[in-house]
Protein backbone atom coordinates (compact mmCIF):
# COMPACT_ATOMS: atom_id res chain seq x y z
CA UNK A 1 0.00 0.00 0.00
CA UNK A 2 2.65 2.43 1.14
CA UNK A 3 4.64 1.63 -1.92
CA UNK A 4 1.72 2.30 -4.24
CA UNK A 5 1.06 5.57 -2.54
CA UNK A 6 4.70 6.52 -2.91
CA UNK A 7 4.58 5.68 -6.58
CA UNK A 8 1.39 7.63 -6.90
CA UNK A 9 2.82 10.73 -5.33
CA UNK A 10 5.92 10.38 -7.47
CA UNK A 11 3.64 10.31 -10.52
CA UNK A 12 1.84 13.37 -9.25
CA UNK A 13 5.10 15.09 -8.61
CA UNK A 14 6.41 14.49 -12.13
CA UNK A 15 3.11 15.64 -13.58
CA UNK A 16 3.32 18.74 -11.42
CA UNK A 17 6.84 19.39 -12.62
CA UNK A 18 5.77 19.02 -16.27
CA UNK A 19 2.99 21.53 -15.69
CA UNK A 20 5.23 23.96 -13.85
CA UNK A 21 8.01 23.70 -16.42
CA UNK A 22 5.42 24.31 -19.13
CA UNK A 23 4.22 27.42 -17.32
CA UNK A 24 7.82 28.54 -16.99
CA UNK A 25 8.39 27.92 -20.72
CA UNK A 26 5.31 29.98 -21.57
CA UNK A 27 6.72 32.75 -19.38
CA UNK A 28 10.07 32.71 -21.17
CA UNK A 29 8.70 32.39 -24.70
CA UNK A 30 5.47 34.33 -24.50
CA UNK A 31 5.67 35.57 -28.09
CA UNK A 32 6.32 32.08 -29.45
CA UNK A 33 3.31 30.70 -27.63
CA UNK A 34 1.15 33.55 -28.90
CA UNK A 35 2.25 32.55 -32.42
CA UNK A 36 1.35 28.95 -31.70
CA UNK A 37 -2.16 29.71 -30.43
CA UNK A 38 -3.80 29.90 -33.90
CA UNK A 39 -1.76 26.94 -35.11
CA UNK A 40 -2.72 24.68 -32.23
CA UNK A 41 -6.29 25.91 -32.42
CA UNK A 42 -6.35 24.94 -36.10
CA UNK A 43 -5.06 21.44 -35.42
CA UNK A 44 -7.41 20.98 -32.49
CA UNK A 45 -10.49 22.10 -34.41
CA UNK A 46 -9.89 20.81 -37.92
CA UNK A 47 -7.73 17.74 -37.29
CA UNK A 48 -8.45 16.44 -33.80
CA UNK A 49 -12.14 17.29 -33.52
CA UNK A 50 -12.92 15.04 -36.54
CA UNK A 51 -10.99 12.25 -34.81
CA UNK A 52 -13.34 12.69 -31.86
CA UNK A 53 -16.23 12.88 -34.32
CA UNK A 54 -15.17 9.50 -35.69
CA UNK A 55 -16.84 7.89 -32.66
CA UNK A 56 -20.07 8.15 -34.65
CA UNK A 57 -18.74 4.98 -36.30
CA UNK A 58 -19.72 3.20 -33.08
CA UNK A 59 -23.07 4.95 -32.82
CA UNK A 60 -26.28 5.32 -34.75
CA UNK A 61 -25.74 8.94 -35.58
CA UNK A 62 -28.56 11.20 -36.55
CA UNK A 63 -27.92 14.91 -37.02
CA UNK A 64 -30.89 15.81 -34.83
CA UNK A 65 -29.54 14.03 -31.76
CA UNK A 66 -25.93 15.10 -32.21
CA UNK A 67 -22.81 13.05 -31.58
CA UNK A 68 -23.33 12.65 -27.82
CA UNK A 69 -27.06 12.05 -27.95
CA UNK A 70 -26.97 9.28 -30.55
CA UNK A 71 -27.17 5.73 -29.18
CA UNK A 72 -24.13 3.45 -29.08
CA UNK A 73 -24.25 0.40 -31.35
CA UNK A 74 -20.74 -0.97 -30.82
CA UNK A 75 -19.11 -2.62 -33.80
CA UNK A 76 -22.32 -3.17 -35.78
CA UNK A 77 -21.29 -0.91 -38.67
CA UNK A 78 -17.86 -2.49 -38.91
CA UNK A 79 -19.42 -5.96 -38.96
CA UNK A 80 -21.90 -4.86 -41.60
CA UNK A 81 -19.10 -3.60 -43.79
CA UNK A 82 -16.67 -6.47 -43.34
CA UNK A 83 -19.27 -9.20 -43.84
CA UNK A 84 -21.10 -7.25 -46.54
CA UNK A 85 -20.97 -7.39 -50.31
CA UNK A 86 -18.94 -4.21 -50.72
CA UNK A 87 -16.00 -5.19 -48.52
CA UNK A 88 -14.23 -7.49 -50.95
CA UNK A 89 -15.11 -5.32 -53.95
CA UNK A 90 -13.76 -2.08 -52.53
CA UNK A 91 -10.69 -3.63 -50.89
CA UNK A 92 -9.77 -5.58 -54.02
CA UNK A 93 -10.26 -2.54 -56.25
CA UNK A 94 -8.21 -0.36 -53.92
CA UNK A 95 -5.34 -2.83 -53.74
CA UNK A 96 -5.43 -3.58 -57.48
CA UNK A 97 -5.37 0.06 -58.51
CA UNK A 98 -2.47 0.69 -56.10
CA UNK A 99 -0.67 -2.39 -57.32
CA UNK A 100 -1.03 -1.56 -61.00
CA UNK A 101 0.12 1.94 -60.25
CA UNK A 102 3.11 0.49 -58.42
CA UNK A 103 3.99 -1.83 -61.29
CA UNK A 104 3.47 0.61 -64.16
CA UNK A 105 3.39 4.06 -62.64
CA UNK A 106 6.33 3.74 -60.29
CA UNK A 107 9.07 2.74 -62.77
CA UNK A 108 7.93 5.17 -65.48
CA UNK A 109 9.56 8.34 -64.06
CA UNK A 110 12.71 6.38 -63.19
CA UNK A 111 13.10 5.23 -66.79
CA UNK A 112 12.36 8.71 -68.12
CA UNK A 113 14.85 10.28 -65.69
CA UNK A 114 17.58 7.82 -66.73
CA UNK A 115 16.99 8.54 -70.41
CA UNK A 116 16.67 12.27 -69.85
CA UNK A 117 20.02 12.19 -68.09
CA UNK A 118 21.59 10.79 -71.24
CA UNK A 119 20.48 13.79 -73.29
CA UNK A 120 23.58 15.96 -73.39
CA UNK A 121 22.10 18.79 -75.46
CA UNK A 122 20.82 21.23 -72.83
CA UNK A 123 18.20 23.23 -74.79
CA UNK A 124 16.69 19.94 -76.01
CA UNK A 125 16.72 18.58 -72.47
CA UNK A 126 15.01 21.70 -71.11
CA UNK A 127 12.37 21.52 -73.86
CA UNK A 128 11.59 17.92 -72.93
CA UNK A 129 11.33 18.86 -69.28
CA UNK A 130 9.08 21.86 -69.88
CA UNK A 131 6.74 19.81 -72.03
CA UNK A 132 6.60 16.71 -69.85
CA UNK A 133 6.01 18.76 -66.68
CA UNK A 134 3.10 20.52 -68.34
CA UNK A 135 0.26 18.05 -67.68
CA UNK A 136 1.07 18.21 -63.97
CA UNK A 137 -0.31 21.75 -63.99
CA UNK A 138 -3.55 20.91 -65.71
CA UNK A 139 -6.24 20.54 -63.07
CA UNK A 140 -7.70 17.14 -62.34
CA UNK A 141 -11.18 18.18 -63.46
CA UNK A 142 -9.82 19.24 -66.84
CA UNK A 143 -7.72 16.07 -67.18
CA UNK A 144 -10.80 13.98 -66.51
CA UNK A 145 -12.81 16.12 -68.92
CA UNK A 146 -10.23 15.42 -71.63
CA UNK A 147 -10.28 11.70 -70.80
CA UNK A 148 -14.06 11.67 -71.09
CA UNK A 149 -14.01 13.45 -74.44
CA UNK A 150 -11.27 11.28 -75.93
CA UNK A 151 -12.81 7.99 -74.81
CA UNK A 152 -16.37 8.88 -75.83
CA UNK A 153 -18.08 6.90 -78.56
CA UNK A 154 -17.28 9.61 -81.12
CA UNK A 155 -13.94 10.43 -79.48
CA UNK A 156 -10.55 10.41 -81.11
CA UNK A 157 -9.43 7.13 -79.47
CA UNK A 158 -12.42 5.35 -80.94
CA UNK A 159 -11.57 6.82 -84.35
CA UNK A 160 -8.29 4.93 -84.19
CA UNK A 161 -9.77 1.73 -82.78
CA UNK A 162 -12.30 1.71 -85.61
CA UNK A 163 -9.45 2.10 -88.05
CA UNK A 164 -8.03 -1.14 -86.66
CA UNK A 165 -11.35 -2.89 -86.97
CA UNK A 166 -12.84 -2.45 -83.51
CA UNK A 167 -16.38 -1.41 -82.82
CA UNK A 168 -17.27 2.04 -81.47
CA UNK A 169 -18.07 1.93 -77.77
CA UNK A 170 -18.00 4.37 -74.92
CA UNK A 171 -14.73 3.26 -73.34
CA UNK A 172 -15.50 4.76 -69.94
CA UNK A 173 -18.59 2.59 -69.69
CA UNK A 174 -16.56 -0.62 -69.94
CA UNK A 175 -15.54 -1.92 -66.52
CA UNK A 176 -12.62 -3.96 -67.86
CA UNK A 177 -10.96 -0.80 -69.19
CA UNK A 178 -11.41 1.49 -66.22
CA UNK A 179 -8.19 0.65 -64.41
CA UNK A 180 -6.14 0.79 -67.59
CA UNK A 181 -7.45 4.25 -68.44
CA UNK A 182 -7.06 5.39 -64.85
CA UNK A 183 -3.43 4.25 -64.56
CA UNK A 184 -2.39 5.26 -68.09
CA UNK A 185 -3.77 8.78 -67.75
CA UNK A 186 -2.08 9.06 -64.36
CA UNK A 187 1.27 8.15 -65.91
CA UNK A 188 0.68 10.60 -68.75
CA UNK A 189 0.01 13.38 -66.27
CA UNK A 190 2.71 12.73 -63.69
CA UNK A 191 5.64 10.99 -65.37
CA UNK A 192 7.54 14.16 -66.21
CA UNK A 193 7.03 15.71 -62.83
CA UNK A 194 8.08 12.48 -61.15
CA UNK A 195 11.52 12.65 -62.77
CA UNK A 196 12.55 15.72 -60.75
CA UNK A 197 13.42 13.83 -57.60
CA UNK A 198 15.42 11.21 -59.52
CA UNK A 199 17.25 13.84 -61.58
CA UNK A 200 18.23 15.48 -58.29
CA UNK A 201 19.59 12.16 -57.05
CA UNK A 202 21.45 11.59 -60.33
CA UNK A 203 23.07 15.03 -60.15
CA UNK A 204 24.69 14.10 -56.85
CA UNK A 205 26.52 11.09 -58.32
CA UNK A 206 30.30 11.52 -58.42
CA UNK A 207 31.41 12.37 -61.98
CA UNK A 208 34.73 10.55 -61.48
CA UNK A 209 32.88 7.26 -61.56
CA UNK A 210 31.83 7.96 -65.15
CA UNK A 211 35.34 8.94 -66.14
CA UNK A 212 36.74 5.77 -64.62
CA UNK A 213 34.16 3.74 -66.48
CA UNK A 214 34.99 5.44 -69.79
CA UNK A 215 38.69 4.73 -69.30
CA UNK A 216 37.84 1.08 -68.66
CA UNK A 217 36.02 1.08 -71.98
CA UNK A 218 32.47 1.13 -70.67
CA UNK A 219 29.92 2.46 -73.13
CA UNK A 220 26.94 4.64 -72.32
CA UNK A 221 24.56 1.81 -71.72
CA UNK A 222 26.98 0.20 -69.30
CA UNK A 223 27.44 3.49 -67.46
CA UNK A 224 23.69 3.85 -67.18
CA UNK A 225 23.23 0.35 -65.78
CA UNK A 226 26.29 0.18 -63.54
CA UNK A 227 26.73 3.74 -62.28
CA UNK A 228 23.58 5.84 -62.66
CA UNK A 229 21.06 3.21 -61.65
CA UNK A 230 22.96 2.02 -58.55
CA UNK A 231 23.59 5.69 -57.71
CA UNK A 232 19.89 6.41 -57.34
CA UNK A 233 18.93 3.03 -55.91
CA UNK A 234 18.62 4.35 -52.36
CA UNK A 235 16.18 7.04 -53.51
CA UNK A 236 14.23 4.42 -55.43
CA UNK A 237 14.06 2.12 -52.40
CA UNK A 238 12.80 4.84 -50.08
CA UNK A 239 10.14 6.03 -52.49
CA UNK A 240 9.10 2.45 -53.17
CA UNK A 241 8.69 1.64 -49.49
CA UNK A 242 6.70 4.80 -48.87
CA UNK A 243 4.53 4.06 -51.88
CA UNK A 244 3.82 0.59 -50.53
CA UNK A 245 2.79 2.19 -47.26
CA UNK A 246 -0.05 3.96 -49.02
CA UNK A 247 -1.29 0.90 -50.87
CA UNK A 248 -4.69 1.07 -49.16
CA UNK A 249 -5.00 4.76 -49.85
CA UNK A 250 -6.36 5.56 -53.29
CA UNK A 251 -7.71 9.10 -53.47
CA UNK A 252 -11.35 9.39 -54.42
CA UNK A 253 -11.22 12.62 -56.42
CA UNK A 254 -10.15 11.16 -59.73
CA UNK A 255 -12.22 8.03 -59.17
CA UNK A 256 -15.47 9.88 -58.63
CA UNK A 257 -14.82 12.14 -61.59
CA UNK A 258 -14.38 9.16 -63.89
CA UNK A 259 -16.54 6.35 -62.60
CA UNK A 260 -20.22 5.67 -63.21
CA UNK A 261 -22.62 2.96 -62.06
CA UNK A 262 -21.58 0.94 -65.12
CA UNK A 263 -17.98 0.74 -63.90
CA UNK A 264 -18.48 0.51 -60.11
CA UNK A 265 -17.46 -3.13 -60.10
CA UNK A 266 -13.88 -2.32 -61.05
CA UNK A 267 -13.66 1.36 -60.13
CA UNK A 268 -15.21 1.70 -56.71
CA UNK A 269 -12.46 1.97 -54.06
CA UNK A 270 -12.82 2.34 -50.31
CA UNK A 271 -12.61 6.14 -50.32
CA UNK A 272 -15.12 6.57 -53.13
CA UNK A 273 -17.44 4.14 -51.36
CA UNK A 274 -17.19 6.22 -48.18
CA UNK A 275 -18.06 9.34 -50.17
CA UNK A 276 -21.03 7.74 -51.88
CA UNK A 277 -22.47 6.10 -48.79
CA UNK A 278 -21.89 9.09 -46.55
CA UNK A 279 -22.47 12.17 -48.64
CA UNK A 280 -24.81 10.91 -51.34
CA UNK A 281 -26.84 8.38 -49.37
CA UNK A 282 -26.28 10.03 -45.97
CA UNK A 283 -25.49 6.84 -44.03
CA UNK A 284 -23.16 8.85 -41.82
CA UNK A 285 -22.33 6.23 -39.20
CA UNK A 286 -21.81 3.36 -41.61
CA UNK A 287 -19.52 5.34 -43.92
CA UNK A 288 -17.66 6.84 -40.95
CA UNK A 289 -17.02 3.25 -39.85
CA UNK A 290 -15.68 2.33 -43.29
CA UNK A 291 -13.55 5.48 -43.27
CA UNK A 292 -12.22 4.73 -39.79
CA UNK A 293 -11.39 1.17 -40.81
CA UNK A 294 -9.41 2.59 -43.74
CA UNK A 295 -7.68 5.21 -41.55
CA UNK A 296 -6.56 2.61 -39.03
CA UNK A 297 -5.21 0.25 -41.70
CA UNK A 298 -3.48 3.20 -43.39
CA UNK A 299 -1.98 4.30 -40.10
CA UNK A 300 -0.26 0.98 -39.56
CA UNK A 301 0.89 0.69 -43.17
CA UNK A 302 2.33 4.19 -43.33
CA UNK A 303 3.92 3.95 -39.89
CA UNK A 304 5.60 0.65 -40.70
CA UNK A 305 6.69 1.90 -44.13
CA UNK A 306 8.30 4.91 -42.52
CA UNK A 307 9.90 2.69 -39.87
CA UNK A 308 11.32 0.35 -42.53
CA UNK A 309 12.68 3.20 -44.63
CA UNK A 310 14.33 4.61 -41.54
CA UNK A 311 15.97 1.22 -40.94
CA UNK A 312 16.99 0.74 -44.55
CA UNK A 313 18.52 4.08 -45.15
CA UNK A 314 18.65 6.02 -41.95
CA UNK A 315 16.55 8.53 -43.81
CA UNK A 316 12.88 9.00 -43.40
CA UNK A 317 10.06 11.13 -44.64
CA UNK A 318 10.41 13.41 -41.63
Amino acid at each position, binding site marked *: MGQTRALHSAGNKSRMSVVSS*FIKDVGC*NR*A*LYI*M*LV*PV*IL*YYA*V*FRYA*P*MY*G*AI*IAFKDFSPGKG*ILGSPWVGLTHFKDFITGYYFSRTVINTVLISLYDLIFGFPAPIILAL*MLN*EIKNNPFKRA*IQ*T*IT*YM*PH*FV*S*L*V*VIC*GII*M*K*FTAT*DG*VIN*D*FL*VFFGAERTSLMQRPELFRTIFIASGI*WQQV*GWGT*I*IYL*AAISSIDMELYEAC*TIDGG*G*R*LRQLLHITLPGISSTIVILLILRMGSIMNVGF*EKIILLYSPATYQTADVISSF*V*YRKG*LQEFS*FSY*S*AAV*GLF*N*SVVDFFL*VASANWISRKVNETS*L*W
Partner: protein
Amino acid sequence: MSIRKSLGDRIFDCFNALFMIMIMIVTIYPLLYVAFASLSDGVQLMAHVGALYKPLGLTLTAYKAVFSNIYILTGYRNTLFIVAAGLVVNLALTSLGAYALSRKSLKFRKPIMLFIIFTMYFSGGLIPGYLLVKGIGLYNSLWALIFPGAISTFNLILMRTAFQAIPASLEESAKIDGAGDFTVLFRIIIPLSLPTIAVMTLYYGVGHWNAWFSAMIYLRDKVKYPLQLILREILIQNETTNMMGDIDTTDQGNVAETIKYATIIVATLPILCIYPFLQKYFVKGTMIGAIKG
Protein backbone atom coordinates in the same frame (compact mmCIF):
# COMPACT_ATOMS: atom_id res chain seq x y z
CA MET B 1 34.93 16.52 -75.42
CA SER B 2 37.43 15.53 -78.05
CA ILE B 3 37.00 11.80 -77.48
CA ARG B 4 35.28 10.27 -80.49
CA LYS B 5 32.02 8.55 -79.78
CA SER B 6 31.90 4.84 -80.38
CA LEU B 7 29.33 3.41 -82.79
CA GLY B 8 27.39 1.88 -79.92
CA ASP B 9 27.15 5.19 -78.15
CA ARG B 10 25.92 6.89 -81.28
CA ILE B 11 23.19 4.32 -81.78
CA PHE B 12 22.26 4.73 -78.14
CA ASP B 13 22.01 8.52 -78.52
CA CYS B 14 19.91 8.17 -81.63
CA PHE B 15 17.38 5.86 -80.04
CA ASN B 16 17.26 7.96 -76.92
CA ALA B 17 16.55 11.16 -78.84
CA LEU B 18 13.87 9.42 -80.89
CA PHE B 19 12.26 8.08 -77.76
CA MET B 20 12.27 11.54 -76.19
CA ILE B 21 10.70 13.12 -79.26
CA MET B 22 8.01 10.46 -79.09
CA ILE B 23 7.39 11.21 -75.41
CA MET B 24 7.06 14.92 -76.19
CA ILE B 25 4.53 14.26 -78.93
CA VAL B 26 2.49 11.93 -76.75
CA THR B 27 2.48 14.50 -73.95
CA ILE B 28 1.66 17.58 -75.97
CA TYR B 29 -0.65 16.18 -78.62
CA PRO B 30 -3.78 15.75 -76.46
CA LEU B 31 -3.44 19.37 -75.36
CA LEU B 32 -2.94 20.52 -78.96
CA TYR B 33 -5.95 18.49 -80.05
CA VAL B 34 -8.07 20.29 -77.46
CA ALA B 35 -6.77 23.65 -78.68
CA PHE B 36 -7.50 22.79 -82.35
CA ALA B 37 -10.94 21.43 -81.56
CA SER B 38 -11.85 24.53 -79.54
CA LEU B 39 -11.18 26.71 -82.59
CA SER B 40 -13.00 24.42 -84.99
CA ASP B 41 -16.40 24.71 -86.51
CA GLY B 42 -18.80 22.40 -84.66
CA VAL B 43 -20.35 20.80 -87.73
CA GLN B 44 -17.01 20.01 -89.34
CA LEU B 45 -15.61 18.68 -86.07
CA MET B 46 -18.54 16.30 -85.63
CA ALA B 47 -18.08 15.00 -89.15
CA HIS B 48 -14.33 14.63 -88.77
CA VAL B 49 -12.79 11.25 -87.95
CA GLY B 50 -9.26 10.78 -86.63
CA ALA B 51 -6.48 13.10 -85.55
CA LEU B 52 -6.52 16.88 -85.95
CA TYR B 53 -3.53 18.78 -87.26
CA LYS B 54 -5.13 22.21 -87.47
CA PRO B 55 -8.46 23.81 -86.53
CA LEU B 56 -11.25 22.89 -88.94
CA GLY B 57 -12.78 26.10 -90.27
CA LEU B 58 -11.30 28.55 -87.78
CA THR B 59 -14.03 30.15 -85.64
CA LEU B 60 -14.39 31.74 -82.22
CA THR B 61 -18.06 30.81 -81.71
CA ALA B 62 -17.26 28.45 -78.86
CA TYR B 63 -15.20 31.07 -77.03
CA LYS B 64 -18.01 33.59 -77.37
CA ALA B 65 -20.37 31.08 -75.78
CA VAL B 66 -17.90 30.37 -72.97
CA PHE B 67 -17.39 34.03 -72.11
CA SER B 68 -21.09 34.73 -72.24
CA ASN B 69 -21.64 32.10 -69.56
CA ILE B 70 -22.18 33.97 -66.31
CA TYR B 71 -20.97 30.99 -64.27
CA ILE B 72 -17.58 30.88 -65.92
CA LEU B 73 -17.14 34.49 -64.87
CA THR B 74 -18.43 34.03 -61.31
CA GLY B 75 -16.35 30.86 -61.14
CA TYR B 76 -13.22 32.77 -62.05
CA ARG B 77 -14.07 35.48 -59.52
CA ASN B 78 -14.70 32.96 -56.72
CA THR B 79 -11.54 31.06 -57.52
CA LEU B 80 -9.48 34.25 -57.43
CA PHE B 81 -10.99 35.13 -54.06
CA ILE B 82 -10.30 31.64 -52.68
CA VAL B 83 -6.72 31.67 -53.94
CA ALA B 84 -6.04 35.16 -52.53
CA ALA B 85 -7.77 34.79 -49.15
CA GLY B 86 -6.62 31.20 -48.83
CA LEU B 87 -3.01 32.17 -49.42
CA VAL B 88 -3.12 34.87 -46.75
CA VAL B 89 -4.45 32.39 -44.19
CA ASN B 90 -2.09 29.60 -45.32
CA LEU B 91 1.06 31.68 -45.29
CA ALA B 92 0.27 33.47 -42.03
CA LEU B 93 -0.48 30.32 -40.06
CA THR B 94 2.25 28.22 -41.65
CA SER B 95 4.99 30.77 -41.07
CA LEU B 96 3.91 31.52 -37.49
CA GLY B 97 3.90 27.82 -36.66
CA ALA B 98 7.10 27.10 -38.53
CA TYR B 99 8.92 29.94 -36.80
CA ALA B 100 7.80 29.07 -33.27
CA LEU B 101 8.61 25.39 -33.77
CA SER B 102 12.01 26.13 -35.27
CA ARG B 103 13.22 27.98 -32.14
CA LYS B 104 15.45 25.90 -29.89
CA SER B 105 14.50 27.99 -26.89
CA LEU B 106 10.99 26.55 -27.04
CA LYS B 107 11.26 23.66 -24.59
CA PHE B 108 7.97 22.04 -25.53
CA ARG B 109 8.51 22.01 -29.27
CA LYS B 110 8.98 18.22 -29.36
CA PRO B 111 5.56 17.32 -27.91
CA ILE B 112 3.91 20.04 -30.00
CA MET B 113 5.58 18.67 -33.15
CA LEU B 114 4.35 15.22 -32.21
CA PHE B 115 0.83 16.61 -31.79
CA ILE B 116 1.09 18.07 -35.31
CA ILE B 117 2.86 15.19 -37.06
CA PHE B 118 0.39 12.63 -35.74
CA THR B 119 -2.22 14.19 -38.01
CA MET B 120 -0.14 13.15 -41.02
CA TYR B 121 -0.59 9.51 -40.07
CA PHE B 122 -4.12 9.49 -38.88
CA SER B 123 -7.24 11.45 -39.68
CA GLY B 124 -10.84 11.31 -38.56
CA GLY B 125 -11.95 10.77 -42.12
CA LEU B 126 -14.22 12.40 -44.64
CA ILE B 127 -17.56 12.13 -42.83
CA PRO B 128 -16.55 13.51 -39.41
CA GLY B 129 -14.75 16.35 -41.20
CA TYR B 130 -17.87 17.12 -43.19
CA LEU B 131 -20.07 17.07 -40.08
CA LEU B 132 -17.61 19.38 -38.32
CA VAL B 133 -17.65 21.97 -41.10
CA LYS B 134 -21.44 21.89 -41.12
CA GLY B 135 -21.55 21.98 -37.33
CA ILE B 136 -19.47 25.14 -37.00
CA GLY B 137 -21.65 26.96 -39.51
CA LEU B 138 -19.32 27.11 -42.49
CA TYR B 139 -21.75 25.32 -44.82
CA ASN B 140 -22.37 27.26 -48.04
CA SER B 141 -19.56 29.69 -47.22
CA LEU B 142 -16.38 30.11 -49.24
CA TRP B 143 -14.46 29.95 -45.94
CA ALA B 144 -15.32 26.26 -45.80
CA LEU B 145 -12.85 25.88 -48.67
CA ILE B 146 -10.16 27.82 -46.83
CA PHE B 147 -10.11 27.03 -43.11
CA PRO B 148 -10.14 23.20 -43.09
CA GLY B 149 -6.95 23.22 -45.17
CA ALA B 150 -5.37 26.27 -43.56
CA ILE B 151 -2.14 24.44 -42.78
CA SER B 152 -0.58 21.62 -44.73
CA THR B 153 1.57 19.74 -42.24
CA PHE B 154 4.00 18.81 -44.96
CA ASN B 155 4.47 22.48 -45.90
CA LEU B 156 4.81 23.42 -42.25
CA ILE B 157 7.66 20.96 -41.88
CA LEU B 158 9.33 22.22 -45.07
CA MET B 159 9.15 25.79 -43.85
CA ARG B 160 10.40 24.89 -40.39
CA THR B 161 13.40 23.15 -41.96
CA ALA B 162 14.13 26.27 -44.02
CA PHE B 163 13.85 28.53 -40.96
CA GLN B 164 16.16 26.27 -38.97
CA ALA B 165 18.83 26.62 -41.64
CA ILE B 166 19.13 30.38 -41.05
CA PRO B 167 22.19 31.10 -38.84
CA ALA B 168 21.21 31.69 -35.22
CA SER B 169 23.70 34.55 -34.92
CA LEU B 170 21.39 36.82 -36.94
CA GLU B 171 18.58 36.23 -34.50
CA GLU B 172 20.85 36.65 -31.49
CA SER B 173 22.21 40.00 -32.60
CA ALA B 174 18.69 41.26 -33.25
CA LYS B 175 17.59 40.05 -29.83
CA ILE B 176 20.49 41.89 -28.19
CA ASP B 177 19.26 45.04 -29.91
CA GLY B 178 15.94 44.46 -28.21
CA ALA B 179 13.94 42.80 -30.98
CA GLY B 180 11.14 40.44 -29.96
CA ASP B 181 10.19 37.22 -31.72
CA PHE B 182 7.62 38.92 -33.95
CA THR B 183 10.23 41.42 -35.12
CA VAL B 184 12.75 38.63 -35.74
CA LEU B 185 10.20 36.68 -37.76
CA PHE B 186 8.95 39.56 -39.91
CA ARG B 187 12.17 41.55 -40.29
CA ILE B 188 14.81 38.82 -40.47
CA ILE B 189 13.51 35.31 -41.02
CA ILE B 190 10.84 35.97 -43.65
CA PRO B 191 12.95 38.36 -45.78
CA LEU B 192 15.72 35.75 -45.76
CA SER B 193 13.35 32.92 -46.73
CA LEU B 194 11.64 34.49 -49.73
CA PRO B 195 12.46 31.57 -52.07
CA THR B 196 10.84 29.17 -49.61
CA ILE B 197 7.86 31.49 -49.21
CA ALA B 198 7.57 31.55 -53.02
CA VAL B 199 7.50 27.75 -53.10
CA MET B 200 4.84 27.67 -50.39
CA THR B 201 2.78 30.27 -52.26
CA LEU B 202 2.89 28.13 -55.38
CA TYR B 203 2.09 24.87 -53.59
CA TYR B 204 -0.85 26.31 -51.70
CA GLY B 205 -1.96 28.44 -54.65
CA VAL B 206 -2.07 25.58 -57.13
CA GLY B 207 -3.91 23.52 -54.51
CA HIS B 208 -6.63 26.16 -54.19
CA TRP B 209 -6.82 26.63 -57.94
CA ASN B 210 -7.38 22.92 -58.56
CA ALA B 211 -9.71 22.20 -55.65
CA TRP B 212 -13.26 21.22 -56.48
CA PHE B 213 -14.32 18.49 -54.08
CA SER B 214 -14.82 20.54 -50.93
CA ALA B 215 -16.65 23.13 -53.02
CA MET B 216 -18.96 20.39 -54.25
CA ILE B 217 -19.82 19.13 -50.77
CA TYR B 218 -19.88 22.44 -48.89
CA LEU B 219 -21.46 24.93 -51.31
CA ARG B 220 -25.12 25.10 -52.22
CA ASP B 221 -25.45 28.28 -54.29
CA LYS B 222 -24.15 28.02 -57.80
CA VAL B 223 -22.98 31.64 -57.83
CA LYS B 224 -20.47 30.69 -55.13
CA TYR B 225 -18.97 27.81 -57.12
CA PRO B 226 -15.27 28.09 -57.98
CA LEU B 227 -14.17 27.59 -61.56
CA GLN B 228 -13.23 23.91 -61.21
CA LEU B 229 -16.69 22.95 -60.02
CA ILE B 230 -18.29 24.80 -62.94
CA LEU B 231 -15.87 22.96 -65.21
CA ARG B 232 -16.95 19.68 -63.70
CA GLU B 233 -20.57 20.44 -64.55
CA ILE B 234 -19.70 21.34 -68.11
CA LEU B 235 -17.09 18.67 -68.83
CA ILE B 236 -18.12 15.69 -66.74
CA GLN B 237 -21.85 16.20 -66.31
CA ASN B 238 -22.49 17.60 -69.78
CA GLU B 239 -24.32 20.75 -68.80
CA THR B 240 -23.84 23.09 -71.70
CA THR B 241 -27.42 24.18 -72.29
CA ASN B 242 -27.24 27.44 -70.36
CA MET B 243 -24.29 28.56 -72.46
CA MET B 244 -26.13 28.48 -75.75
CA GLY B 245 -27.63 31.95 -75.52
CA ASP B 246 -28.79 33.00 -78.97
CA ILE B 247 -27.56 29.89 -80.78
CA ASP B 248 -30.32 28.13 -82.74
CA THR B 249 -31.50 24.83 -81.29
CA THR B 250 -30.53 23.00 -84.47
CA ASP B 251 -26.91 24.07 -84.07
CA GLN B 252 -26.67 23.49 -80.34
CA GLY B 253 -25.60 19.87 -80.53
CA ASN B 254 -22.71 20.77 -82.76
CA VAL B 255 -21.58 23.76 -80.73
CA ALA B 256 -21.81 21.82 -77.44
CA GLU B 257 -18.76 19.83 -78.44
CA THR B 258 -16.56 22.79 -79.27
CA ILE B 259 -17.79 24.62 -76.16
CA LYS B 260 -16.31 21.93 -73.98
CA TYR B 261 -12.94 22.22 -75.65
CA ALA B 262 -13.02 26.00 -75.44
CA THR B 263 -13.89 25.79 -71.74
CA ILE B 264 -10.85 23.60 -71.13
CA ILE B 265 -8.63 26.14 -72.86
CA VAL B 266 -10.11 29.12 -71.02
CA ALA B 267 -9.56 27.38 -67.69
CA THR B 268 -6.10 26.00 -68.40
CA LEU B 269 -4.28 28.48 -70.61
CA PRO B 270 -3.54 31.03 -67.85
CA ILE B 271 -1.75 28.41 -65.73
CA LEU B 272 0.11 26.88 -68.68
CA CYS B 273 1.31 30.32 -69.75
CA ILE B 274 2.75 31.29 -66.38
CA TYR B 275 4.07 27.92 -65.30
CA PRO B 276 7.30 27.88 -67.37
CA PHE B 277 8.32 31.02 -65.47
CA LEU B 278 7.51 29.43 -62.11
CA GLN B 279 8.98 26.08 -63.02
CA LYS B 280 12.25 26.63 -61.19
CA TYR B 281 10.41 27.35 -57.94
CA PHE B 282 8.36 24.19 -58.18
CA VAL B 283 11.48 22.20 -58.86
CA LYS B 284 13.19 23.84 -55.92
CA GLY B 285 10.22 22.92 -53.72
CA THR B 286 10.48 19.28 -54.67
CA MET B 287 14.16 19.42 -53.80
CA ILE B 288 13.45 20.87 -50.35
CA GLY B 289 10.90 18.13 -49.86
CA ALA B 290 13.45 15.53 -50.78
CA ILE B 291 15.81 16.61 -48.03
CA LYS B 292 15.11 15.16 -44.65
CA GLY B 293 13.01 17.52 -42.55
